[in-house]
């Protein structure tokens, strides 16, 4: 039984390819031109509040608290402020803005600014390890508007201890002066953004703790969330893609069902891949990549004409197990190294075979090479795009005008679209066809060959290439 790829005329195949390219471009354009960057980081500097001695644990809002401008002011303050009265408060987002449920997640980090002071050194521990910073953090939330508006409510409180890694940068104008460059400390993450405003209070216990951290001038806070616009574009794409992919799957299943035989392993794998891809439109990507790799192994195996047993998942347990560890590059290497050359070798032997067998192998090789090239292209593009996106993000961009394309968003939607297009074009092209292959001269013979090629016994995997070629030539000689 032939698949659609083999029965399709060249012109229709080209039209189909053009359609796919158009769809792909649409995905990239949607990401690059419509969507904003996937995430946004907003920098904050903590306001310094002085807690009331009678209510030391109260949640302090920078707008209403007793604010001082700097720690220096606290030193000269006539009220004799104590270290445990100092509360660093951060309200996010900034004034006049509001968090949205479209933001999906919030990840934060803090960084300390230390001043050089000969009297308070930042001192490493005796063993050279960085001193630890201990702080008590409280996260609170509130809603400003609507019927469920309320004042700050505490969400979590936690006492944390983290290493504080800082490096002294000496000033060029004065060798006794300088400042410290401290590393960012990951702070907390929120899995869903349910409330409109959030407030963080950080208190640094003194006396026993925090006596090696030097003199703090500021606490910097960075809040990262997924952009609402990106979430909207992403959800829209998934909403459009999901029904289309389900329709294609139903069509494929019906095609297979119409056949008068049991479905082949390859068909099952293809169907599974389609299902997982359709699910990816809802769920995570890890499953998709696992299934994709399993499919590649099965596909390669089914087209490899040197395996004794086929059409049986058990014979692939090794490969599928290896995929559990998931090594994409190894797989590509493996595919091109072992299979590609093997097939090339066979092609050389083709002219020596009978016509029917030639057709059979040509079909197999055509099918296989087509997929392999597309697959390597897709995988290569994925790798290239991830490299581009990480290089692109890491640079601080200057210039009067930024580029007009949001590259990282385009890469996200583009790669998403690319794998969807890839899988569903496979499902379509490799669906069993009712028509006969174009170059075929008799369906009877074709069917007979199909049967034979499926049951032919070959040497087991791990044999050297020579033996395969030997087997092959031996077989064609027998023919």
């Amino acid at each position: 039984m032939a698949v659609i790829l083999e029965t399709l005329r060249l012109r229709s195949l080209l039209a189909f390819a053009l359609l796919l390219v158009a769809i792909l471009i649409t995905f990239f354009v949607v990401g690059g031109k419509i969507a904003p960057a996937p995430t946004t980081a907003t920098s904050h500097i903590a306001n310094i509040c002085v807690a009331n001695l009678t209510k030391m644990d109260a949640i302090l809002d920078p707008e209403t608290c007793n604010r001082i401008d700097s720690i220096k002011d606290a030193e000269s303050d006539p009220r004799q402020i104590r270290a445990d009265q100092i509360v660093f408060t951060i309200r996010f987002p900034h004034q006049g803005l509001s968090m949205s449920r479209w933001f999906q997640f919030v990840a934060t980090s803090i960084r300390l600014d230390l001043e050089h002071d000969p009297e308070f050194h930042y001192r490493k521990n005796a063993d050279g390890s960085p001193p630890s910073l201990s702080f008590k953090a409280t996260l609170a939330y509130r809603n400003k508007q609507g019927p469920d508006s309320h004042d700050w409510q505490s969400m979590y409180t936690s006492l944390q201890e983290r290493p504080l890694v800082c490096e002294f940068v000496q000033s060029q104008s004065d060798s006794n002066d300088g400042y410290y460059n401290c590393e960012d400390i990951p702070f907390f993450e929120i899995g869903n953004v349910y409330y409109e405003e959030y407030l963080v209070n950080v208190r640094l216990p003194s006396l026993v703790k925090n006596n090696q951290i030097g003199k703090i001038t500021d606490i910097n806070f960075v809040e990262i969330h997924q952009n609402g616009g990106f979430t909207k574009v992403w959800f829209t794409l998934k909403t459009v893609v999901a029904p289309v992919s389900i329709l294609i799957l139903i069509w494929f299943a019906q095609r297979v069902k119409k056949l008068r035989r049991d479905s082949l392993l390859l068909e099952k794998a293809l169907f599974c891949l389609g299902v997982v891809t359709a699910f990816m439109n809802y769920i995570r990507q890890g499953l998709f990549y696992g299934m994709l790799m399993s499919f590649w192994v099965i596909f390669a195996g089914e087209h490899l004409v040197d395996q004794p047993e086929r059409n049986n998942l058990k014979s692939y347990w090794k490969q599928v197990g290896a995929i559990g560890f998931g090594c994409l590059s190894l797989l590509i290497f493996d595919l091109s190294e072992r299979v590609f050359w093997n097939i090339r070798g066979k092609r050389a032997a083709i002219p020596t075979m009978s016509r029917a067998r030639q057709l059979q192998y040509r079909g197999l090789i055509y099918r296989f090479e087509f997929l392999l090239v597309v697959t390597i292209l897709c995988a290569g593009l994925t790798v290239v795009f991830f490299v581009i996106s990480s290089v692109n993000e890491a640079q601080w961009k200057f210039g009067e005008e930024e580029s007009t394309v949001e590259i990282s968003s385009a890469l996200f939607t583009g790669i998403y679209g690319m794998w969807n297009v890839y899988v569903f074009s496979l499902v379509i092209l490799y669906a069993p066809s009712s028509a006969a292959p174009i170059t075929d001269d008799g369906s009877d013979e074709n069917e007979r060959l199909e049967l034979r090629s499926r049951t032919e016994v070959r040497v087991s995997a791990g044999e050297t290439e020579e033996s395969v070629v030997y087997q092959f030539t031996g077989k064609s000689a027998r023919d």
Partner: protein
Amino acid sequence: MWRQSLLLCVLAVSLFEESASASWMWMGVSALSTRSNGNLTSCYGVPGLSSQQMRVCENKPDLIPTLRLGANLGITECQRQFQKERWNCSTTNSSSVFGEVINIGSREAGFVYAIASAGVVHAVSRACRVGNLSDCACETKRKRKQQYSGWEWGGCNDDVRHGIAISKMFVDAPEHTARVQSYPLATAQDRSTRSARAKRGRYLMNLHNNEVGRRAVQNLMHSQCRCHGVSGSCTVKTCWDKVPHFFHVGDVLKAKYRDAVEVVYNKRKRRIKRKEQRRMRISKDSLVYIERSPNYCSPNAKLGILGTSGRVCNKTSEGVDQCDLLCCGGGYNTQVVREVNRCQCRFVWCCHVTCKTCPRIYDLHTCK
């Protein structure tokens, strides 16, 4: 009432504008004496603001404390950078802040303009991050995405861009106003006079140096990134800008001060050009000056130069604070000083230190 005071101010402004154009920095000096965030919530006491600067103050009153902090930051850093030099960036009580010496287009003046302009960028971007300014990042968002530019759609994080925009708008204003005014008003004869030409050269020098200051902050920005993909993989990477410590900006500008380029005003092309190697373009990152520095050794009341007499110098230093250099060869006095210092302090991260006192005896050298 308001209009009257405004009129008065405009009058006062136009009077001052002639004598010293740097005096918006006075906002920073007044902040040095009073407690920061003090009473000055309007610009109506500030001498020598241009009309455009007054307009900025009126339209954005919440910007005023930040501008003061910016000027203060610049002046403080200038004094830190020049503490060992013959001219130590000392301020006077006059409206021109540094005295008449700032009206000489020297490399020192160039540094002051650059550092003050950088100070405003720094202070504004800091105020944005603290939350003291209401219209920061979202306002200056690029035009292309105006329709989607909302916070919810794409976020806004252009604090430094905003600082640069404010610095351009406020710090460059006197030069822009003066340039525009001087052309239509000046007669042909006027234009050719030496003073008018020098003035135009000076405006261009100031504008150039202001830009150098802003670029110094911008060039020192570097992005900090964080990955937050599945199980720590870097599928999603978010970066943000880390604003440099202002010491660092000062250090960089001080190095540019040493390598400053002497320029002349080309009246035909209305541009400034290098004095030597005229063909070579002036880099956007190098400070320029049009006049040689005056002699900072002896006091000059007219220019507001204090001289180096009485300055503390270092006998053994190899740098510019070495006694022979700093005192301009005029000799120095040495006295033995007995001082009580804080020592063996107990570390508490904030507010109070408990220290012992230790006596210290050392030689103090001061210029004659």
